[in-house]
């Protein structure tokens, strides 16, 4: 405790904050073309080390001593804007910067670039805007944020084609995925092959793998913060695309010019058309598709107040032979109000609703039933940023979320009296957090960002909580406890220190260090590596303690070639207390005693991540390499010996390249290599009542063959696009260019033709997949 208190002694004294010989420049940076706010644009004071970066609302605030300055506003891929400022009073300066891609090929930008990645205290995080992501060859033409994230160091894909991801050894449920601040509980469509993020509605995504800021909490391993576009505030515009498996359409327009605008974006797949090719009659009458809709509205109430309302609705439908139905999806709604108390104090209040549900059933007949499950949360969040002075940026706020879990409701339909209706006990909880942090510059080379988050988790009645003995059987003396409505019957608290430090070695290099402690109170009941839509989230309780992760990371950052080539090397070590796994042959679906299937132990992960990225010029891209291990120890699994996690892949290499040949033609290329996934391979077999059963001696003791794949894309922006409003482009993407049969899984089974004989079977999903997509915009 004393250690934590000491941290805050660094906080600047109040006198310092309000000294009178300094003035503040603040404002917004937006895109000249469509009025979108620029996230992470840099604001530099020429010939000094002072500077600022715009926040997610495009706002910046910079406090300087009285004087004359040249301020340079810049953003990757945009032309710089330089302003001369005579600073003798507080000033509001908002600028519009313009996309330089049209002029890119004539003038290779070699001007001095910002060295934000070296100078910034943040590490283990990557910001990607949608334009970068669009340059990557896409599976079936469907540009995907998460698929791009998987190409970054420290991030593993959960399997071929999947949008599940694992960050620095954390499980899929340890990623906090946010869409305009709303939690997305299941970010995949079509059984994991696509993510919920529609390329036309998304502006930007930032992934934190470590050094997670104090404002975020609730997940152990990462935060993926995805932000939607605001909508074109300059003019009416329509864009869309027609692809092999999906089509998209987006409409955006000002409502009141420069004051208010909206965007609506929809997407629908028609992958199920392929089912018609099947010889199986039932498959022909089946459907498998998804659609989603993003909408956002913003209004500038005044110079100091802005209102944003955004929402997402998505649904997947699986319908087999018109007789069995399964549907699932997320709904999120976020209402935000930005308020500037002064040019130094920025605040935002958000009200957030988020819901993930699935329903399945047989609509009619003697077995007719409906079954549904959902997790709903209602959240209030209030964040403040105080740009105190050039040396201190203080952030504080709180968040409180009410969670409503319905693990399953089962209802017979159609007068079916053969089943009882059944409701697994619902769960209710309140998760809250308050935080305070300060980013402080000490001298010209050293920056420290220190903060603390206090998280509080409370289980609320009505509830029935089963009591387990040491063998995970129900206690005979008291098998369960019941709690009344509204009763706060169990409380956990967690102190989560966060720390980041940077020391600049020279203009082009720095070393950084970070530490964070994270608490996670929600857990996902899923033990398969592929994501299923039947996700059941369950809360910590008197039986399940919160999971706690401690992570330390060290990094060296170095830029070359006038900051156009950014490189970094990071090492991390992470330990998880109260790590959970599920017992052998666990039953996770429709199980009222789910907590009895959980086994608790510890986990650790460590690794080295190398990253080199070039973001400017005709030739862009990155190379990332990760060497990592992820290990777990749980008494009841693998005889208590440490075992490698299901998604442990020691070597992971990604090469992503894009080349603009001329204004019309551009190329994209990726190559991915990683170690094969661990596999529990049988060491024997026996026959039980006609069934050949494998015998295993070690969990995840073998590996499936290594995975590698190369993708390629060509994009044509025809010359006729120049100078006209309607612009169209063609994209040809080839997934798995050299048609490698990468195993999705290797299974061991009995030979159907030769009972008793057993064999190894490789399942692979995709061979080479070429796709053509047509995109337009006007």
């Amino acid at each position, binding site marked *: 405790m004393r250690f934590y208190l000491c941290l805050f002694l660094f906080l600047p004294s109040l006198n310092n904050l309000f000294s009178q010989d300094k003035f503040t420049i603040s404002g917004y940076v937006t895109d000249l073309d469509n009025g979108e706010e620029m996230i992470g644009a840099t604001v530099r004071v020429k010939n000094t080390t002072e500077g600022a970066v715009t926040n997610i609302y495009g706002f910046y605030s910079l406090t300087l001593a009285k004087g004359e300055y040249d301020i340079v506003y810049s953003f990757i891929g945009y032309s710089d804007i330089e302003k001369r400022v005579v600073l003798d009073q507080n000033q509001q300066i908002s600028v519009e910067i313009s996309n330089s891609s049209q002029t890119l090929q004539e003038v290779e930008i070699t001007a001095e670039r910002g060295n934000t990645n070296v100078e910034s205290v943040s590490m283990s995080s990557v910001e990607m805007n949608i334009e970068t992501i669009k340059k990557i060859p896409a599976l079936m033409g469907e540009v995907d944020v998460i698929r791009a994230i998987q190409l970054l160091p420290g991030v593993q894909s959960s399997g071929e084609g999947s949008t599940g991801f694992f960050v620095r050894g954390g499980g899929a449920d340890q990623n906090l995925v946010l869409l305009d601040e709303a939690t997305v509980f299941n970010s995949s469509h079509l*059984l994991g092959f696509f993510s919920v993020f529609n390329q036309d509605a998304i502006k930007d995504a930032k992934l934190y793998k470590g050094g997670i800021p104090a404002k975020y909490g609730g997940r152990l391993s990462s935060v993926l913060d995805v932000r939607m576009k605001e909508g074109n505030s300059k003019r009416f515009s329509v864009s869309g695309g027609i692809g092999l498996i999906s089509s998209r359409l987006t409409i955006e327009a000002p409502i009141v010019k420069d004051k208010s605008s909206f965007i609506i974006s929809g997407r629908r797949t028609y992958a199920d058309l392929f*089912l018609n*090719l*099947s010889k199986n009659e039932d*498959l022909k009458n089946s459907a*498998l598709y998804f659609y989603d809709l993003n909408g956002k509205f913003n209004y500038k109430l005044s110079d100091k107040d802005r209102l944003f309302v955004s929402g997402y609705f998505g649904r997947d439908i*699986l319908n*087999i032979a018109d*007789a*069995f139905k*399964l549907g699932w999806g997320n709904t999120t709604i976020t209402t935000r109000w930005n308020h500037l108390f002064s040019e130094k104090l920025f605040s935002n209040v958000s009200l957030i609703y988020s819901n993930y549900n699935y329903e399945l059933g*047989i609509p009619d007949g003697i*077995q007719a039933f409906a079954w549904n499950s959902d997790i709903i949360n209602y959240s209030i969040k209030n964040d403040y940023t105080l740009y105190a002075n050039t040396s201190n940026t203080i952030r504080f706020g709180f968040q409180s979320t009410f969670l409503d879990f319905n693990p399953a409701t*089962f209802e017979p339909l159609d007068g079916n*009296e*053969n*089943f*009882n209706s*059944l409701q697994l006990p619902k769960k209710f909880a309140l998760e809250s957090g308050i935080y305070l942090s300060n980013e402080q510059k000490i001298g010209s080379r050293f920056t420290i960002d220190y903060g603390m988050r206090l998280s509080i988790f409370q289980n609320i009645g009505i509830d029935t909580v089963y009591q387990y003995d040491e063998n995970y059987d129900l206690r005979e003396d008291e098998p369960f406890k019941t709690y009344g409505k509204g009763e706060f019957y169990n409380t956990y608290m967690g102190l989560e220190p966060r720390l980041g430090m940077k020391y600049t070695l020279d203009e082009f290099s720095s070393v950084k260090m970070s530490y964070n402690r994270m608490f996670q109170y929600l857990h996902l009941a899923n033990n*398969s590596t592929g994501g299923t839509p*039947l996700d059941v989230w369950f809360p910590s309780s008197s039986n399940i303690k919160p999971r706690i992760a401690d992570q330390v990371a060290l990094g060296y950052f170095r830029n070359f070639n006038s900051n156009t080539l950014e490189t970094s090397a990071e090492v991390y070590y992470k330990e998880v207390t109260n790590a959970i796994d599920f017992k*052998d*042959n666990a039953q996770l679906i429709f199980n009222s005693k789910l907590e009895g299937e959980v086994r608790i132990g510890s986990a650790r992960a460590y690794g080295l991540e190398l990253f080199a990225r070039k973001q400017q010029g005709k030739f862009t891209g990155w190379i990332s390499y990760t060497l990592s291990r992820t290990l777990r120890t749980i008494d009841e699994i693998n005889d208590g010996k440490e075992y490698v996690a*299901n998604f442990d892949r020691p070597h992971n290499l990604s090469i992503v390249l894009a080349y603009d040949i001329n204004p019309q033609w551009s190329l994209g290329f990726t190559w991915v290599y990683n170690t094969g996934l661990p*596999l*529990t*391979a*049988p*060491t*024997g*077999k*026996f*026959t*039980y009542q*006609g*069934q*050949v*059963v*494998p*015998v*295993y*001696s070690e*969990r*995840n003791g*073998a590996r499936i063959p290594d995975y590698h794949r190369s993708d390629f894309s060509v994009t044509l922006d025809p010359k006729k696009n120049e100078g006209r409003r309607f612009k169209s482009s063609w994209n040809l993407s080839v997934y798995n260019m050299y048609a490698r*049969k990468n*195993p999705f899984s*290797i*299974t061991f089974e*009995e030979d159907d033709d030769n009972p*008793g004989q*057993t*064999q*190894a*079977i*490789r*399942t*692979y*999903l*995709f061979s080479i997949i070429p796709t053509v997509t047509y995109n337009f915009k006007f």
Partner: protein
Amino acid sequence: MNEYLALFAIILSVTSCREKIDFDLSNGNTKIVIDGSITSENRRHSVKISKTSNYYDANSDERVQNASVIISDGTTDFTLTETEPGIYKTDSLSGEIGKTYTLKVSYEGITYSARSFLKEVAELQAIIAVQLFETIPIVNEVDSDYTVAMVINEPEGLGDYYLFKYYINNRLESDTVREYSFADDEFIDGLSFDTAGFNLVPIYFIESELVEVGDTVKLEVLSINEDYNDFLISVLLQSEFRGGLFDGPAANVGSNFDNGALGYFIASDVSSAETIITPQ
């Protein structure tokens, strides 16, 4: 509900491909496997003893001969005799409701034992076997199948577990785990079923080619316990249900034997009912 996960695999099989590959495996230690049961019926009860083999061996069922096998009800020991390689049988006797039975197998100096409580089962009052001409996806795809349904008063209170077996003209048809129908009473607790109004829970579907008018169909219901129910599920999860895209981790199936033996010993009460296939 695991069959619903299998559905995804079916959809994905449109795009996925499967092929046999060579994959080197190491060999583990040989273990004893015991499959034993005793029921309330008066007959010779049998115990099968085998051992594990290497995974790629052609033979998956190596029998163990010359073991000493005893079933005890706590007061009396019944010694089993080997009637064919690896198959050991009692004399004719019937298990009694409310007793706990112990199976002891001694082989090469090690004794393996397991216990099981013989619990009463609800009486199967009657069964019907009719063609409903209705399909149920995945479970019953052919609408001419005979649906075998039961008339039973399910006792009030959760915690009853059932294993069903069916016979055509006294020949056991459901003779492998993948063909078993077994269930707990979570969805049917305390319900009474009858044949009126087609108020049915299908237990089995029999292909119409397998039976003729005049054939006798018999359904047996056996009382089992939660642990054996989980054991049967794990046998299926690790064999028949394996190979899907959403498998959980591979794991050993359980056992109620000590000293590292695999397999299971289960004591069951049995109730049965018959029906004759009539013209529809």
